[in-house]
């Protein structure tokens, strides 16, 4: 019984995000002209899953007390790459998918290498690598275009047994294959430990660098899965600067909503997923309430501003003002 309580406490952030999501989703569907139907859920899921992948990617890096401002650009790059490669026979398509995922992994590894072994600040380093990734994306697709294996795309964006959105199933599979093993591995623990207290982790002999490197690398991988799905939804590749930036920004919002601490060491990708779904639903609420869609960016910006300000309440517990400057 006590265990159950600790589990609750551990997952408080995640549960809160889940709660926000459920409430928002109920409001959304009950006001949606079509109501709670499989189609509405499918559309919502497809939009939400994209952000969920990027938010998972951001979570991994944020756990190490870093930040990856290039996730959106990795998404764009892999989207453009997928629009070239994920075509043709099933065999070619498979090779294409693998290549896209590898590209994401490499992008993440480059970020990690520069930040950890090059000892550059994550912000500047990932803004700069983000520019490079965007440039490569633009090189691949100077104009929107390309195509994708539509059978695969339709299969992964459709419905399973006419009820469950396949994209949600895919998200679940990624969680089980990427996030769960990582979070339970020694490296995952090292990433958490390094984010929480790098000195204590060092004194305890934790493999800090490898843990962080893994986190950055897997973040690239997850962003590339997002890129793949973007291609599946749109059937094209497009290097749109504003859209890449928006994904980066929303990933941070989703992470914060999902109970992941921007100071590192705390939170889970599951929480970030619900944060992402909730964030998307909030954005769509304006739509069902018939607001002008023009208000959506402002609305999302304000939610983000409020979400990041919430963390400041911890400040009022600080009793030695010198701790402000640690």
């Amino acid at each position, binding site marked *: 019984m006590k265990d159950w309580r600790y589990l609750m406490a551990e997952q408080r952030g995640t549960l809160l995000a889940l709660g926000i999501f459920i409430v928002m989703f109920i409001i959304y569907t009950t006001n949606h002209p079509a109501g709670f139907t499989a189609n509405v859920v499918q559309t919502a899921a497809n939009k939400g899953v994209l952000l969920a992948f990027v938010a998972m990617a951001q979570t991994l890096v944020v756990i190490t007390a870093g930040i990856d401002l290039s996730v959106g650009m990795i998404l764009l790059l892999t989207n453009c790459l997928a629009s070239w490669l994920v075509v043709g026979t099933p065999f070619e398509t498979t090779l294409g998918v693998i290549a896209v995922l590898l590209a994401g992994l490499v992008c993440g590894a480059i970020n990690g290498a*520069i930040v950890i072994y090059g000892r550059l600040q994550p*912000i500047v380093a990932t803004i700069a690598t983000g*520019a*490079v990734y965007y440039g*490569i994306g*633009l*090189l691949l697709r100077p104009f929107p275009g390309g195509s994708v294996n539509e059978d695969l795309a339709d299969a992964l964006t459709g419905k399973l047994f006419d009820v469950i959105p396949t994209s949600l199933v895919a998200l679940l599979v990624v969680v089980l294959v990427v996030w769960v093993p990582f979070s339970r591995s020694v490296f995952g623990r090292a990433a958490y430990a390094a984010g929480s207290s790098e000195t204590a982790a060092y004194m305890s002999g934790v493999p800090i660098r490898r843990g962080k490197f893994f986190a950055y690398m897997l973040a690239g991988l997850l962003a590339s899965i997002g890129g793949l799905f973007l291609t599946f939804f749109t059937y094209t590749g497009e290097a749109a600067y504003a859209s890449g930036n928006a994904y980066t920004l929303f990933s941070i919002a989703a992470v914060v909503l999902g109970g992941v601490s921007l100071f590192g060491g705390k939170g889970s990708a599951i929480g970030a997923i619900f944060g992402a779904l909730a964030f998307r639903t909030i954005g769509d609420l304006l739509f069902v309430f018939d607001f002008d869609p023009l208000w959506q960016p402002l609305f999302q910006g304000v939610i983000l501003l409020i979400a990041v300000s919430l*963390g*400041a309440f911890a400040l009022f517990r600080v009793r030695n003002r010198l701790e402000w400057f640690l």
Partner: protein
Amino acid sequence: MSETTLGGIAGRMPKFLRRADPAVATAFACIVILLLLGSLYSRSFLSPEYLLQQLKVASFLGVIATGMMLVILLGQIDLSVPWSVATGAMMACAAAAYGHAGVVLAIPFGILCGVAIGIVNGFGVAYLRIPSMIITLATNAVAQGLMVVYTGGFSPQDSATAAMRYLATGSTIPGVPNGVIIWALIGAAMVFVLTRTSFGRAVYGIGNRERAAYLSGIDTRRIVMIAFAVSGGLSAFGGVLLAGYASKAAQSMGDAYLLPSIAAVVLGGTSILGGRGSYLGTVAGVILITLLQSILSVMQMPEAGRQIIYGVVIVAMLLLYGRAPASR
């Protein structure tokens, strides 16, 4: 600048040489190399007209990078530049639509809007202690949202006032574009603030060791707040000039200034961790970036190539001299 025991001109030279940061020297060397490379490509690269034209283009980035430098010197960063620029431009143009008073107040109003964004940033960083990159991203999103609502998602129809156009494209002194003069004035003011005022000293002090600055009786929070407000204001002023240059404001006109402004400051030898850097370096960084852009566009390098080269150059130069200490 020297009042050491050595005194006089004899004291100045060694100090000037001592102050010649390797990063600043490297940046200036790169400028020379770029010009030489460019002159191989086209003879006009070394002509005064071309160089003045480059300075004029550089002046917009120079104004924006000045604010960015102030924030980076504190050890913070301002990622709200894109929409501070756009907000400044749009609001100045918008004010112009309100009769005579609007035309007169267009420029101050645009700048004030940027200052307001900066104040929100500064409040978040200084008083709520939200990491600057997060809060500035958030205010950037809010500013974007406000502008989207205001313009209806299209490029605004209002156009720049005559004064804005004159500031950006005219030339009071024959042959010298006004933009360059404005940048020179702002730069001179910045140098004065950084080297001669207690505010400037406090900025460097906070950037080096905020704890020590706080214990020395500096109101660190107020200083941080002011620095962000100035950064917001200068970004907006950059936007006003850009709007004057193009005669109107545009939705994503600021996007192209975030990375270059950070890059210019950092390439000029200012430490991204704060506390170290000179304005001369930022000037070098701005010119370097502008020349790089110019040469890439003369060579008809597409946008994609430019982005890649930016990113690679910045990472490479940071790895050369912008790294954190080995062990902490």
